Protein backbone atom coordinates (compact mmCIF):
# COMPACT_ATOMS: atom_id res chain seq x y z
CA UNK A 1 0.00 0.00 0.00
CA UNK A 2 1.40 3.40 -0.89
CA UNK A 3 1.97 5.84 1.95
CA UNK A 4 0.42 9.32 1.74
CA UNK A 5 3.00 11.86 0.54
CA UNK A 6 3.78 14.45 3.25
CA UNK A 7 2.71 17.98 2.29
CA UNK A 8 6.31 19.22 2.60
CA UNK A 9 7.17 16.96 -0.38
CA UNK A 10 4.19 18.09 -2.45
CA UNK A 11 4.76 20.23 -5.53
CA UNK A 12 2.49 22.92 -4.09
CA UNK A 13 4.61 23.30 -0.96
CA UNK A 14 7.18 25.81 -2.37
CA UNK A 15 4.37 28.10 -3.63
CA UNK A 16 2.49 27.84 -0.33
CA UNK A 17 5.72 28.51 1.57
CA UNK A 18 6.42 31.54 -0.65
CA UNK A 19 2.98 33.08 -0.16
CA UNK A 20 3.05 32.17 3.52
CA UNK A 21 6.39 33.94 4.00
CA UNK A 22 5.07 37.04 2.20
CA UNK A 23 1.92 37.03 4.33
CA UNK A 24 4.02 36.63 7.50
CA UNK A 25 6.24 39.56 6.44
CA UNK A 26 3.21 41.79 5.74
CA UNK A 27 1.68 40.81 9.06
CA UNK A 28 4.95 41.58 10.89
CA UNK A 29 5.13 45.04 9.25
CA UNK A 30 1.47 45.65 10.21
CA UNK A 31 2.19 44.76 13.85
CA UNK A 32 5.39 46.87 13.98
CA UNK A 33 3.52 49.88 12.54
CA UNK A 34 0.58 49.41 14.91
CA UNK A 35 2.87 49.33 17.97
CA UNK A 36 4.77 52.40 16.63
CA UNK A 37 8.10 50.63 16.12
CA UNK A 38 7.89 51.72 12.46
CA UNK A 39 6.85 55.29 11.76
CA UNK A 40 3.50 55.18 9.91
CA UNK A 41 4.41 58.42 8.08
CA UNK A 42 7.27 56.56 6.41
CA UNK A 43 5.63 53.18 5.92
CA UNK A 44 1.85 53.02 6.15
CA UNK A 45 0.22 49.93 7.67
CA UNK A 46 -0.23 47.23 4.99
CA UNK A 47 -3.95 47.11 5.89
CA UNK A 48 -4.27 50.75 4.72
CA UNK A 49 -2.30 49.99 1.55
CA UNK A 50 -4.67 47.09 0.77
CA UNK A 51 -7.68 49.30 1.54
CA UNK A 52 -6.27 51.97 -0.82
CA UNK A 53 -6.11 49.60 -3.80
CA UNK A 54 -9.85 49.88 -4.77
CA UNK A 55 -9.63 53.69 -4.40
CA UNK A 56 -6.53 53.84 -6.59
CA UNK A 57 -8.20 51.64 -9.17
CA UNK A 58 -11.44 53.66 -9.24
CA UNK A 59 -10.25 57.24 -8.75
CA UNK A 60 -6.74 57.25 -10.21
CA UNK A 61 -7.49 55.28 -13.38
CA UNK A 62 -4.80 52.81 -12.43
CA UNK A 63 -5.82 50.27 -15.07
CA UNK A 64 -5.20 52.61 -18.00
CA UNK A 65 -1.93 53.72 -16.37
CA UNK A 66 -1.02 50.11 -15.74
CA UNK A 67 -1.69 49.27 -19.39
CA UNK A 68 0.43 52.24 -20.51
CA UNK A 69 3.41 51.22 -18.34
CA UNK A 70 2.97 47.54 -19.26
CA UNK A 71 2.76 48.50 -22.96
CA UNK A 72 5.90 50.62 -22.72
CA UNK A 73 7.64 47.77 -20.89
CA UNK A 74 6.52 45.27 -23.53
CA UNK A 75 7.71 47.40 -26.47
CA UNK A 76 11.02 48.10 -24.71
CA UNK A 77 11.36 44.36 -23.90
CA UNK A 78 10.85 43.31 -27.51
CA UNK A 79 13.27 45.96 -28.80
CA UNK A 80 15.88 45.27 -26.18
CA UNK A 81 15.70 41.50 -26.79
CA UNK A 82 15.99 41.80 -30.56
CA UNK A 83 18.83 44.33 -30.54
CA UNK A 84 20.55 42.92 -27.44
CA UNK A 85 20.70 39.35 -28.71
CA UNK A 86 21.71 40.52 -32.19
CA UNK A 87 24.43 42.71 -30.64
CA UNK A 88 25.75 39.79 -28.59
CA UNK A 89 25.81 37.56 -31.68
CA UNK A 90 27.68 40.25 -33.65
CA UNK A 91 30.27 40.60 -30.92
CA UNK A 92 30.69 36.81 -30.81
CA UNK A 93 31.06 36.47 -34.57
CA UNK A 94 33.49 39.37 -35.07
CA UNK A 95 36.43 39.11 -32.71
CA UNK A 96 37.82 42.54 -33.61
CA UNK A 97 34.48 44.17 -32.85
CA UNK A 98 34.36 42.30 -29.53
CA UNK A 99 37.88 43.39 -28.56
CA UNK A 100 37.10 46.97 -29.59
CA UNK A 101 33.77 47.35 -27.79
CA UNK A 102 33.28 44.80 -25.01
CA UNK A 103 34.76 47.05 -22.32
CA UNK A 104 32.56 49.95 -23.44
CA UNK A 105 29.44 47.80 -23.37
CA UNK A 106 30.33 46.59 -19.86
CA UNK A 107 30.90 50.20 -18.76
CA UNK A 108 27.51 51.23 -20.17
CA UNK A 109 25.85 48.38 -18.25
CA UNK A 110 27.17 49.84 -15.00
CA UNK A 111 26.41 53.50 -15.83
CA UNK A 112 23.38 55.37 -14.34
CA UNK A 113 21.76 55.80 -17.73
CA UNK A 114 18.62 57.33 -16.24
CA UNK A 115 20.56 60.60 -16.04
CA UNK A 116 20.41 60.79 -19.83
CA UNK A 117 16.69 61.51 -19.78
CA UNK A 118 17.04 65.26 -20.54
CA UNK A 119 18.89 64.39 -23.73
CA UNK A 120 16.16 61.91 -24.72
CA UNK A 121 13.53 64.55 -23.94
CA UNK A 122 15.26 66.87 -26.40
CA UNK A 123 15.52 64.14 -29.05
CA UNK A 124 12.10 62.45 -28.74
CA UNK A 125 10.00 65.00 -26.81
CA UNK A 126 7.91 64.49 -23.64
CA UNK A 127 6.12 61.35 -24.75
CA UNK A 128 6.05 57.56 -24.53
CA UNK A 129 8.85 57.21 -27.10
CA UNK A 130 11.31 58.84 -24.68
CA UNK A 131 10.23 56.45 -21.94
CA UNK A 132 10.51 53.38 -24.20
CA UNK A 133 13.90 54.49 -25.51
CA UNK A 134 15.19 55.07 -21.98
CA UNK A 135 14.08 51.55 -21.05
CA UNK A 136 15.64 50.19 -24.22
CA UNK A 137 18.98 51.93 -23.57
CA UNK A 138 19.13 50.72 -19.97
CA UNK A 139 18.31 47.10 -20.82
CA UNK A 140 20.54 46.69 -23.86
CA UNK A 141 24.01 46.21 -22.38
CA UNK A 142 23.25 43.28 -20.01
CA UNK A 143 21.57 41.34 -22.82
CA UNK A 144 24.48 41.94 -25.20
CA UNK A 145 27.01 40.85 -22.57
CA UNK A 146 25.09 37.76 -21.48
CA UNK A 147 24.42 36.68 -25.08
CA UNK A 148 28.14 36.98 -25.77
CA UNK A 149 28.95 35.06 -22.58
CA UNK A 150 26.48 32.30 -23.45
CA UNK A 151 27.76 31.85 -26.99
CA UNK A 152 31.42 31.99 -25.99
CA UNK A 153 30.78 29.56 -23.14
CA UNK A 154 29.34 26.81 -25.38
CA UNK A 155 31.23 23.64 -24.56
CA UNK A 156 33.91 22.84 -27.15
CA UNK A 157 32.75 19.23 -27.40
CA UNK A 158 29.25 20.31 -28.55
CA UNK A 159 30.80 22.44 -31.28
CA UNK A 160 32.97 19.47 -32.26
CA UNK A 161 29.87 17.24 -32.43
CA UNK A 162 28.40 19.73 -34.91
CA UNK A 163 31.63 19.80 -36.90
CA UNK A 164 31.79 16.00 -36.96
CA UNK A 165 28.31 15.99 -38.52
CA UNK A 166 29.51 18.49 -41.13
CA UNK A 167 27.06 21.21 -40.09
CA UNK A 168 27.00 24.43 -42.09
CA UNK A 169 27.84 27.67 -40.30
CA UNK A 170 24.17 28.54 -40.05
CA UNK A 171 23.22 25.06 -38.74
CA UNK A 172 26.08 25.22 -36.27
CA UNK A 173 24.63 28.47 -34.92
CA UNK A 174 20.92 27.61 -34.83
CA UNK A 175 21.22 23.94 -33.85
CA UNK A 176 24.06 24.12 -31.34
CA UNK A 177 25.41 27.54 -30.33
CA UNK A 178 22.11 29.31 -29.86
CA UNK A 179 20.27 26.60 -27.86
CA UNK A 180 23.40 26.00 -25.78
CA UNK A 181 23.59 29.73 -24.98
CA UNK A 182 19.86 30.17 -24.29
CA UNK A 183 19.95 29.78 -20.48
CA UNK A 184 22.62 32.49 -20.22
CA UNK A 185 20.81 34.67 -22.77
CA UNK A 186 17.67 34.45 -20.62
CA UNK A 187 19.64 35.48 -17.53
CA UNK A 188 20.68 38.57 -19.53
CA UNK A 189 17.11 39.13 -20.70
CA UNK A 190 15.77 39.05 -17.16
CA UNK A 191 18.47 41.49 -16.04
CA UNK A 192 17.89 43.71 -19.07
CA UNK A 193 14.12 43.73 -18.65
CA UNK A 194 14.43 44.61 -14.95
CA UNK A 195 16.79 47.49 -15.85
CA UNK A 196 14.35 48.59 -18.57
CA UNK A 197 11.35 48.54 -16.22
CA UNK A 198 13.19 50.46 -13.49
CA UNK A 199 14.09 53.13 -16.03
CA UNK A 200 10.60 53.24 -17.56
CA UNK A 201 8.92 53.84 -14.20
CA UNK A 202 11.74 56.16 -13.12
CA UNK A 203 11.47 58.34 -16.21
CA UNK A 204 7.65 58.40 -15.95
CA UNK A 205 8.18 59.65 -12.41
CA UNK A 206 10.85 62.19 -13.40
CA UNK A 207 9.08 63.71 -16.40
CA UNK A 208 5.64 63.34 -14.81
CA UNK A 209 4.23 61.63 -17.87
CA UNK A 210 2.25 58.50 -18.58
CA UNK A 211 1.66 55.48 -16.44
CA UNK A 212 2.37 54.18 -12.98
CA UNK A 213 5.53 56.27 -12.46
CA UNK A 214 3.54 59.46 -12.93
CA UNK A 215 0.79 58.16 -10.61
CA UNK A 216 3.36 57.37 -7.90
CA UNK A 217 4.76 60.90 -8.33
CA UNK A 218 1.29 62.48 -8.00
CA UNK A 219 0.26 60.37 -4.99
CA UNK A 220 3.58 61.03 -3.22
CA UNK A 221 3.22 64.77 -3.78
CA UNK A 222 -0.23 64.56 -2.19
CA UNK A 223 1.33 62.67 0.77
CA UNK A 224 -1.08 59.83 0.02
CA UNK A 225 1.30 57.14 1.30
CA UNK A 226 -1.14 54.18 1.24
CA UNK A 227 -2.05 55.15 -2.34
CA UNK A 228 1.65 55.46 -3.28
CA UNK A 229 2.41 51.99 -1.95
CA UNK A 230 -0.71 50.61 -3.64
CA UNK A 231 0.55 52.04 -6.96
CA UNK A 232 3.98 50.47 -6.29
CA UNK A 233 2.19 47.11 -5.95
CA UNK A 234 1.00 47.54 -9.55
CA UNK A 235 4.60 48.21 -10.69
CA UNK A 236 5.57 44.92 -9.02
CA UNK A 237 2.69 43.29 -10.90
CA UNK A 238 4.13 44.53 -14.24
CA UNK A 239 7.50 43.08 -13.20
CA UNK A 240 5.90 39.73 -12.33
CA UNK A 241 4.10 39.60 -15.69
CA UNK A 242 7.31 40.38 -17.63
CA UNK A 243 9.20 37.76 -15.59
CA UNK A 244 6.51 35.11 -16.18
CA UNK A 245 6.45 35.82 -19.91
CA UNK A 246 10.22 35.34 -20.18
CA UNK A 247 9.96 32.14 -18.18
CA UNK A 248 7.24 30.81 -20.49
CA UNK A 249 9.29 31.81 -23.53
CA UNK A 250 12.34 30.00 -22.16
CA UNK A 251 10.34 26.83 -21.43
CA UNK A 252 8.93 26.93 -24.95
CA UNK A 253 12.34 27.42 -26.56
CA UNK A 254 14.17 24.99 -24.24
CA UNK A 255 11.81 22.45 -22.72
CA UNK A 256 14.61 20.79 -20.71
CA UNK A 257 15.42 23.97 -18.77
Amino acid at each position, binding site marked *: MSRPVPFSKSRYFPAVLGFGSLAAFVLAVELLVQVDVINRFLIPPPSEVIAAIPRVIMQEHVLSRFMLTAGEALVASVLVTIFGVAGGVLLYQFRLLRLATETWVAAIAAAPLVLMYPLYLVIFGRNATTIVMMGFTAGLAPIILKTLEGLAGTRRVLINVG*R*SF*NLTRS*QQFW*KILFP*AALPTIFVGMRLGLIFALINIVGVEYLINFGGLGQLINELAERFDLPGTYAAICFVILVSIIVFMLTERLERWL*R*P*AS
Partner: protein
Amino acid sequence: MSVIAMPSGRDAAPAARSVEPILTVDSIVKQFETPDGVVAAVDNVSLAVKPGEFFSVIGPSGCGKSTLFNIIGGLLDGYDGAVRVGGELVHGPHASIGMIFQEESTFPWRSVIDNVAFPLEIAGLPKTERYDRARHFVSLVGLDGFERRFPAELSGGMRQRVSMARTLAAQPKILLMDEPFAALDEQTRLLLGDKVLQIQQELKQTTLLITHNITEAVQLSDRIMVMTYRPGKVKRIVDIDLPRPRSSEIVSSEAFGRYVAQIWSDLREEATRGMHDDETRRGGAPR
Protein backbone atom coordinates in the same frame (compact mmCIF):
# COMPACT_ATOMS: atom_id res chain seq x y z
CA MET B 1 56.81 -1.34 -40.00
CA SER B 2 54.18 -3.87 -40.88
CA VAL B 3 50.93 -2.60 -39.49
CA ILE B 4 48.45 -4.94 -41.12
CA ALA B 5 48.74 -8.27 -39.40
CA MET B 6 45.34 -9.86 -39.07
CA PRO B 7 44.45 -12.46 -36.50
CA SER B 8 43.40 -15.80 -37.88
CA GLY B 9 40.94 -18.59 -37.17
CA ARG B 10 38.25 -16.53 -35.47
CA ASP B 11 34.53 -16.65 -35.80
CA ALA B 12 33.93 -12.98 -36.46
CA ALA B 13 36.64 -12.07 -38.84
CA PRO B 14 35.08 -9.77 -41.39
CA ALA B 15 38.40 -8.00 -41.50
CA ALA B 16 40.12 -11.14 -42.63
CA ARG B 17 37.81 -11.53 -45.61
CA SER B 18 38.80 -8.19 -47.09
CA VAL B 19 42.28 -7.05 -47.88
CA GLU B 20 41.69 -3.39 -48.70
CA PRO B 21 41.78 -1.17 -45.64
CA ILE B 22 38.83 1.20 -45.25
CA LEU B 23 40.86 3.69 -43.25
CA THR B 24 44.52 4.48 -43.79
CA VAL B 25 46.62 6.91 -41.88
CA ASP B 26 49.94 7.61 -43.59
CA SER B 27 52.97 9.07 -41.83
CA ILE B 28 51.09 11.62 -39.74
CA VAL B 29 53.27 14.24 -38.09
CA LYS B 30 51.72 16.94 -35.96
CA GLN B 31 53.60 19.62 -34.07
CA PHE B 32 52.30 22.33 -31.76
CA GLU B 33 53.82 25.71 -31.02
CA THR B 34 54.06 26.20 -27.25
CA PRO B 35 55.69 28.88 -25.07
CA ASP B 36 58.50 26.33 -24.48
CA GLY B 37 59.05 25.81 -28.21
CA VAL B 38 57.76 23.37 -30.80
CA VAL B 39 56.37 20.12 -29.37
CA ALA B 40 55.91 17.08 -31.59
CA ALA B 41 52.62 15.48 -30.51
CA VAL B 42 52.45 12.76 -33.16
CA ASP B 43 55.48 11.58 -35.06
CA ASN B 44 55.23 9.50 -38.22
CA VAL B 45 52.20 7.44 -37.21
CA SER B 46 50.75 5.09 -39.81
CA LEU B 47 47.97 2.58 -39.47
CA ALA B 48 45.42 0.79 -41.59
CA VAL B 49 42.05 -0.46 -40.45
CA LYS B 50 40.10 -3.03 -42.44
CA PRO B 51 36.32 -3.14 -42.85
CA GLY B 52 34.60 -4.58 -39.80
CA GLU B 53 37.75 -4.48 -37.73
CA PHE B 54 37.92 -3.20 -34.15
CA PHE B 55 41.22 -1.37 -33.87
CA SER B 56 42.42 0.30 -30.71
CA VAL B 57 45.13 2.86 -30.11
CA ILE B 58 46.55 2.77 -26.61
CA GLY B 59 49.19 4.91 -24.98
CA PRO B 60 50.05 6.87 -21.86
CA SER B 61 48.56 10.30 -21.19
CA GLY B 62 50.19 12.91 -23.41
CA CYS B 63 51.20 10.51 -26.18
CA GLY B 64 49.08 12.28 -28.79
CA LYS B 65 46.16 9.83 -28.90
CA SER B 66 43.53 12.56 -28.87
CA THR B 67 45.51 14.58 -31.41
CA LEU B 68 45.42 11.53 -33.67
CA PHE B 69 41.65 11.18 -33.03
CA ASN B 70 41.06 14.80 -34.01
CA ILE B 71 43.21 14.49 -37.13
CA ILE B 72 41.41 11.34 -38.32
CA GLY B 73 38.03 12.91 -37.52
CA GLY B 74 38.97 15.99 -39.52
CA LEU B 75 38.75 18.37 -36.55
CA LEU B 76 42.43 19.28 -36.65
CA ASP B 77 44.51 20.43 -39.60
CA GLY B 78 48.00 21.73 -40.14
CA TYR B 79 49.65 18.29 -40.06
CA ASP B 80 51.93 16.35 -42.41
CA GLY B 81 50.81 13.03 -43.83
CA ALA B 82 47.47 11.82 -45.11
CA VAL B 83 44.21 10.29 -43.93
CA ARG B 84 42.26 8.24 -46.47
CA VAL B 85 38.81 6.69 -46.23
CA GLY B 86 38.26 4.01 -48.85
CA GLY B 87 41.24 5.41 -50.75
CA GLU B 88 39.77 8.94 -50.81
CA LEU B 89 41.97 11.64 -49.30
CA VAL B 90 40.15 13.26 -46.40
CA HIS B 91 40.33 16.93 -45.48
CA GLY B 92 38.05 17.93 -42.65
CA PRO B 93 35.09 16.01 -41.21
CA HIS B 94 33.92 13.18 -43.45
CA ALA B 95 30.44 11.67 -43.68
CA SER B 96 31.95 8.16 -43.47
CA ILE B 97 33.46 8.84 -40.05
CA GLY B 98 31.29 9.10 -36.94
CA MET B 99 32.86 10.39 -33.77
CA ILE B 100 32.13 9.63 -30.13
CA PHE B 101 33.85 11.96 -27.73
CA GLN B 102 35.39 11.46 -24.32
CA GLU B 103 33.44 14.30 -22.73
CA GLU B 104 29.70 14.18 -22.23
CA SER B 105 28.40 15.40 -25.56
CA THR B 106 24.63 14.97 -25.60
CA PHE B 107 22.61 18.11 -26.28
CA PRO B 108 20.98 18.93 -22.93
CA TRP B 109 18.11 20.83 -24.58
CA ARG B 110 17.03 17.80 -26.64
CA SER B 111 15.29 14.65 -25.44
CA VAL B 112 16.96 11.27 -26.01
CA ILE B 113 15.02 10.66 -29.23
CA ASP B 114 15.73 14.17 -30.51
CA ASN B 115 19.43 13.77 -29.71
CA VAL B 116 19.57 10.51 -31.65
CA ALA B 117 17.51 11.95 -34.53
CA PHE B 118 19.86 14.94 -34.79
CA PRO B 119 22.04 13.73 -37.71
CA LEU B 120 18.91 12.56 -39.55
CA GLU B 121 17.33 15.99 -39.08
CA ILE B 122 20.49 17.55 -40.52
CA ALA B 123 20.28 15.11 -43.44
CA GLY B 124 16.75 16.42 -44.10
CA LEU B 125 14.82 13.20 -43.48
CA PRO B 126 11.05 13.55 -42.99
CA LYS B 127 9.99 13.61 -39.35
CA THR B 128 8.29 10.18 -39.27
CA GLU B 129 11.20 8.45 -40.94
CA ARG B 130 13.83 10.05 -38.78
CA TYR B 131 11.99 9.17 -35.56
CA ASP B 132 11.48 5.58 -36.75
CA ARG B 133 15.19 5.28 -37.44
CA ALA B 134 16.15 7.05 -34.24
CA ARG B 135 13.94 4.64 -32.23
CA HIS B 136 15.84 1.73 -33.76
CA PHE B 137 19.18 3.11 -32.58
CA VAL B 138 17.80 4.03 -29.16
CA SER B 139 16.73 0.42 -28.86
CA LEU B 140 20.10 -0.81 -30.14
CA VAL B 141 21.91 0.88 -27.25
CA GLY B 142 19.32 -0.46 -24.80
CA LEU B 143 17.51 2.75 -23.93
CA ASP B 144 13.94 1.74 -24.82
CA GLY B 145 11.47 3.63 -22.68
CA PHE B 146 13.81 6.61 -22.19
CA GLU B 147 13.05 8.29 -25.53
CA ARG B 148 11.30 11.32 -24.00
CA ARG B 149 13.76 11.82 -21.16
CA PHE B 150 16.31 14.62 -21.20
CA PRO B 151 20.04 13.99 -20.66
CA ALA B 152 19.91 15.61 -17.20
CA GLU B 153 17.59 12.79 -16.14
CA LEU B 154 20.05 10.06 -17.20
CA SER B 155 23.19 8.56 -15.68
CA GLY B 156 26.64 9.14 -17.20
CA GLY B 157 26.63 5.70 -18.83
CA MET B 158 23.18 6.26 -20.33
CA ARG B 159 24.21 9.64 -21.68
CA GLN B 160 27.24 8.08 -23.32
CA ARG B 161 24.95 5.49 -24.92
CA VAL B 162 22.79 8.34 -26.27
CA SER B 163 25.92 9.85 -27.85
CA MET B 164 26.74 6.47 -29.32
CA ALA B 165 23.23 6.02 -30.73
CA ARG B 166 23.33 9.53 -32.20
CA THR B 167 26.61 8.80 -33.98
CA LEU B 168 25.41 5.37 -35.17
CA ALA B 169 22.17 6.93 -36.49
CA ALA B 170 24.25 8.78 -39.09
CA GLN B 171 25.34 5.30 -40.25
CA PRO B 172 29.02 6.06 -40.60
CA LYS B 173 31.32 3.50 -42.20
CA ILE B 174 33.89 4.06 -39.47
CA LEU B 175 33.18 4.69 -35.81
CA LEU B 176 35.87 6.73 -34.11
CA MET B 177 35.76 6.70 -30.29
CA ASP B 178 37.97 8.77 -28.02
CA GLU B 179 38.01 7.19 -24.55
CA PRO B 180 34.20 7.13 -24.49
CA PHE B 181 34.03 5.40 -21.11
CA ALA B 182 36.84 7.31 -19.39
CA ALA B 183 34.50 9.20 -17.06
CA LEU B 184 32.57 6.08 -16.01
CA ASP B 185 33.14 3.66 -13.15
CA GLU B 186 34.79 0.30 -13.85
CA GLN B 187 31.62 -1.81 -13.68
CA THR B 188 29.66 0.49 -16.00
CA ARG B 189 32.68 0.57 -18.28
CA LEU B 190 32.75 -3.26 -18.55
CA LEU B 191 29.01 -3.44 -19.16
CA LEU B 192 29.16 -0.72 -21.81
CA GLY B 193 32.04 -2.65 -23.35
CA ASP B 194 29.60 -5.56 -23.71
CA LYS B 195 27.12 -3.22 -25.36
CA VAL B 196 29.78 -2.00 -27.80
CA LEU B 197 30.74 -5.60 -28.61
CA GLN B 198 27.10 -6.50 -29.19
CA ILE B 199 26.56 -3.50 -31.47
CA GLN B 200 29.78 -4.14 -33.34
CA GLN B 201 28.76 -7.76 -33.82
CA GLU B 202 25.34 -6.70 -35.11
CA LEU B 203 26.41 -3.87 -37.40
CA LYS B 204 29.85 -5.19 -38.36
CA GLN B 205 30.95 -1.66 -37.69
CA THR B 206 34.55 -0.72 -38.37
CA THR B 207 35.71 0.89 -35.14
CA LEU B 208 38.79 2.82 -34.07
CA LEU B 209 39.02 3.22 -30.32
CA ILE B 210 41.40 5.61 -28.61
CA THR B 211 41.98 4.57 -25.01
CA HIS B 212 44.45 4.38 -22.16
CA ASN B 213 42.63 1.46 -20.57
CA ILE B 214 44.36 -1.87 -21.33
CA THR B 215 41.45 -4.07 -20.16
CA GLU B 216 39.00 -2.16 -22.31
CA ALA B 217 41.29 -2.36 -25.34
CA VAL B 218 41.86 -6.13 -25.01
CA GLN B 219 38.17 -6.82 -24.30
CA LEU B 220 37.03 -5.04 -27.46
CA SER B 221 39.78 -5.15 -30.06
CA ASP B 222 41.01 -7.23 -32.94
CA ARG B 223 44.28 -5.31 -32.93
CA ILE B 224 45.86 -2.84 -30.55
CA MET B 225 48.43 -0.24 -31.50
CA VAL B 226 50.67 0.77 -28.60
CA MET B 227 52.02 4.31 -28.80
CA THR B 228 55.15 5.73 -27.23
CA TYR B 229 55.12 8.68 -24.86
CA ARG B 230 55.75 12.08 -26.45
CA PRO B 231 56.31 12.30 -29.35
CA GLY B 232 53.61 9.71 -30.08
CA LYS B 233 55.04 7.00 -32.34
CA VAL B 234 53.90 3.46 -33.12
CA LYS B 235 55.67 1.19 -30.64
CA ARG B 236 53.99 -2.09 -31.52
CA ILE B 237 50.81 -3.51 -32.98
CA VAL B 238 49.40 -6.52 -31.13
CA ASP B 239 46.91 -8.96 -32.64
CA ILE B 240 44.27 -9.99 -30.12
CA ASP B 241 43.43 -13.56 -30.97
CA LEU B 242 40.52 -14.08 -28.59
CA PRO B 243 37.33 -15.81 -29.73
CA ARG B 244 34.26 -13.82 -30.75
CA PRO B 245 31.53 -13.16 -29.86
CA ARG B 246 33.05 -11.80 -26.67
CA SER B 247 31.64 -10.43 -23.47
CA SER B 248 33.05 -8.89 -20.32
CA GLU B 249 33.39 -12.41 -18.89
CA ILE B 250 36.46 -12.82 -21.06
CA VAL B 251 38.44 -10.64 -18.65
CA SER B 252 38.79 -13.64 -16.31
CA SER B 253 40.37 -15.89 -18.97
CA GLU B 254 44.05 -16.78 -18.93
CA ALA B 255 44.62 -15.63 -22.52
CA PHE B 256 43.10 -12.25 -21.67
CA GLY B 257 45.51 -11.87 -18.77
CA ARG B 258 48.46 -12.70 -21.03
CA TYR B 259 47.47 -9.97 -23.52
CA VAL B 260 47.02 -7.46 -20.71
CA ALA B 261 50.47 -8.35 -19.31
CA GLN B 262 52.06 -8.13 -22.74
CA ILE B 263 50.60 -4.71 -23.48
CA TRP B 264 51.37 -3.43 -20.01
CA SER B 265 55.03 -4.44 -20.40
CA ASP B 266 55.12 -2.27 -23.54
CA LEU B 267 53.17 0.52 -21.96
CA ARG B 268 54.85 0.59 -18.58
CA GLU B 269 58.11 2.03 -19.86
CA GLU B 270 56.21 4.77 -21.74
CA ALA B 271 53.92 5.57 -18.82
CA THR B 272 56.96 5.81 -16.50
CA ARG B 273 58.63 8.19 -18.93
CA GLY B 274 55.47 10.27 -19.06
CA MET B 275 55.21 10.40 -15.27
CA HIS B 276 58.85 11.49 -14.84
CA ASP B 277 58.45 14.09 -17.55
CA ASP B 278 55.34 15.45 -15.83
CA GLU B 279 57.12 15.60 -12.45
CA THR B 280 60.11 17.38 -14.00
CA ARG B 281 57.85 19.93 -15.68
CA ARG B 282 56.16 20.60 -12.36
CA GLY B 283 59.53 21.32 -10.77
CA GLY B 284 60.23 18.02 -8.95
CA ALA B 285 63.71 16.44 -8.81
CA PRO B 286 64.33 13.73 -11.45
CA ARG B 287 64.66 10.25 -9.92
